[in-house]
């Protein structure tokens, strides 16, 4: 019994020692947290720990976990920024929790469900709304706005990340939109010297181009005016509806179009498939554009892609017959008399866990991440176009964003545009649209039937949301 008692006491002492090594931070006084204070002795060793002089980070050794998805280039940049922060604030350790995009949403969902998510999370735009089905599952960033300077973002940008109850779930990293990226060399090779500017020209252009296509059930050696992957057809649908109505797909909690608008949109798709100016479902083998033979061989004269992925497509094109200088960015064309359009949504965002022990330290880190010039330089363009004021200025001044990506960034601000509603990206809305589009492409249903199914499926989901 005595041994057992001693063992329990020793265990409790050990656990207590472990706990003090990771002390929750003290509440920051109102009015800021920029006052320098004396470095603290938090380790209890008698040595002074350098906290960088910020009171939020003075309370002791802090470990912040940061979950994010991405590729190797992003890993290098993110780790560089974390180590930079640690060099500024040696009592803070940033731990990466990372992986590829595939399966990442499921992993985060499970973490959130179990309350084991990271302190700071890179989040996809729809998560902010879908995870809580309208309620916020992250920390309301308005509660740490005395540390995280929200004036770095426009209200329009922040509104994308506000849930139905007005809470700010995340700050957006930047904005994203779909553009047509033309291959100028391939167009010139056909004896053409300009790009289609209206929808009518676009269709006529593609019709002539595809007149010699012989493989109707295969990609074969066909030429396409635009290579539009199956999963992006939905975004084209949105563009067509916006061009026709001036409304986004959803306006508030209602559809922004009528049955006739939907019929016209689907008929336009049928025309594009019939003329073979975009690949049919049968011809699309799901090969990413940067690896797709049609694009690399110059048989696809354009591709419809996110501005955030321009660099991926450009890198892929280095192996093709032309050069990156041959690539030209344009918006999806509107009917004659209507300017083209780019619909926008945040590339991604950063949220803070509602369960974090260090909400203010996490907010401080995010503020640093978006406003510190060295941090912005370290990240470069691996997270896409930065949207925060300081980050945008630094990125442009330092040449971190250049070429077509810079062109796209400027066009995002200057061309006719509208917001992509979060309902549009909700899979409960998107999946029925995807199936309808496939059935239309395969000739299983007509444009009229597709339009009716579209309205039924989207209205049904809207009703579900209203009932909840």
């Amino acid at each position, binding site marked *: 019994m005595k041994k057992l008692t001693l063992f329990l006491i020793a265990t409790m002492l050990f656990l207590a020692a472990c706990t003090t090594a990771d002390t929750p931070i003290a509440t920051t006084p109102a009015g800021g947290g920029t006052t320098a204070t004396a470095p603290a002795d938090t380790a209890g060793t008698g040595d002074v720990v350098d906290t960088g002089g910020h009171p939020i980070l003075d309370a002791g050794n802090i470990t912040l976990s940061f979950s994010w998805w991405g590729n190797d280039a992003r890993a290098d940049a993110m780790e560089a920024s974390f180590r930079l922060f640690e060099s500024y604030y040696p009592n803070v350790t940033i731990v990466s929790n990372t992986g590829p995009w595939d399966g990442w949403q499921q992993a985060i969902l499970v973490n959130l469900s179990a309350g084991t998510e990271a302190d700071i999370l890179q989040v996809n735009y729809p998560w902010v709304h879908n995870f*809580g089905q309208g309620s916020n*599952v992250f920390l309301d960033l308005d509660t740490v706005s005395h540390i995280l300077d929200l004036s770095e973002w426009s209200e329009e940008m922040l509104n994308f990340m506000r849930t139905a109850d007005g809470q700010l779930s995340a700050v957006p990293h930047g904005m994203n939109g779909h553009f047509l990226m033309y291959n100028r060399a391939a167009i010139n090779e056909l004896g053409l010297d300009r790009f289609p500017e209206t929808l009518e020209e676009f269709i006529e252009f593609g019709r002539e181009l595809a007149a010699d296509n012989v493989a109707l059930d*295969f990609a074969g050696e066909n030429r396409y005016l635009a290579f539009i992957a199956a999963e992006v057809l939905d975004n084209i649908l949105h563009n067509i509806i916006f061009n026709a109505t001036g409304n986004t797909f959803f306006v508030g909690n209602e559809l922004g179009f009528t049955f006739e608008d939907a019929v016209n949109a689907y008929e336009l798709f049928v025309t594009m498939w019939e003329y073979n100016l975009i690949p049919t479902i049968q011809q699309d*083998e799901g090969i990413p554009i940067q690896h797709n033979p049609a694009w690399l061989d110059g048989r696809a004269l354009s591709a419809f892609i996110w501005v955030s992925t321009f660099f991926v497509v450009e890198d892929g094109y280095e192996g093709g017959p032309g050069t990156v200088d041959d690539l030209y960015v344009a918006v999806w064309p509107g009917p004659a008399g209507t300017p083209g359009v780019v619909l926008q949504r945040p590339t991604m965002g950063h949220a803070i866990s509602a369960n974090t022990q260090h909400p203010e330290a996490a907010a401080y880190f995010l503020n640093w991440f978006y406003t510190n010039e060295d941090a912005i330089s370290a990240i470069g363009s691996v997270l896409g176009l930065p949207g925060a004021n300081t980050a945008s200025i630094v990125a442009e001044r330092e040449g971190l964003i250049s070429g077509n990506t810079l062109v796209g960034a400027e066009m995002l601000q200057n061309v006719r545009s509208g917001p992509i509603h979060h309902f549009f990206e909700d899979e409960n809305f998107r999946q029925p649209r995807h199936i309808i589009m*496939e059935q239309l492409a*395969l000739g299983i249903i007509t444009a009229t039937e597709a339009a009716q199914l579209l309205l039924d499926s989207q209205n049904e989901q809207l009703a579900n949301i209203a009932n909840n």
Partner: protein
Amino acid sequence: MKGVTIDKAVRKKLTFGQWLNTDTVSGYVFALPFIIGFSFMMAVPMFLSFYYSFTDFNMLNTPTFIGLDNYVRMWNDMRFRNSVSVTFRFVFLSVPVRLVFGLMLAYVLTRKTSGVHFYRSIYYLPTLIGGSIAVALVWGQLFQNQGVINVVLGAFGLDGVNWFGNPNNALWPLIFMSVWQFGSSMIIFAAGLKDIPETYYEAAEIDGANKWRVFFSITVPCLSPIILYNLVMQTIAAFMTFTQAFIITGGGPADSTNFLALYIYNHAFNWFNMGYASAMSWVLLTMVAVSTAFIMWTSKKWTFYANE
């Protein structure tokens, strides 16, 4: 070693080692890994999913009881009905072909010829690497429009087939892939074939039976308990097929390969309808149980046991 029998009168006098060595305790100790694993990895999740099937659980909310709404929703969900249909089509097409293929090769590979062990190992290899993601990716490439399969068809002067772009064709590569993984049933068939007494074959030979007659009158009846086992196991596995569709087709085109397991996964983890997904899981379990019970019921008419 014979264990020590527990006797209340002497229990207090046992040392820890002796107590551990009693029949009852040692039995529980040996069974403990399974009991823990089954309880926490199977029983608890199953009971929870049954409870969730009557709620609107989305993984992040507090589940609210909604009665039979999820089960009623299934009745009106055309995609659910389609996924059940696709799953049954896959089961009915892949399981018999897989069993016939496995039995055929087992029959050939149990003949007393040189190198038979080598060939048996080679044929078992696809099963070893199983339905992994890597294998699914390779099969996906093989059946692409310009993949190896169409190239081979072209070499024989045949038109290529648009396997994954046509809803009428998309299920077939997944069936072929399933059949290709015949190794486990082949090995069990081979073991069963070796257990059939040689005297039966000798008697048939004396009676002048030809090879087909021997196969259908001796081999198949004697092997029927093994066929039953393989049929049940392969049917259950086919109902749960997920990886191929998840990796290769994503359920498309036009839901033509949207297996029920894939549909459940999407509802649970991509569309945040865990309650509905749980309800569908119980329907899938019921489908598997009823199918298994049906097979067992019919087996009385076609299985033969030597001791009966």
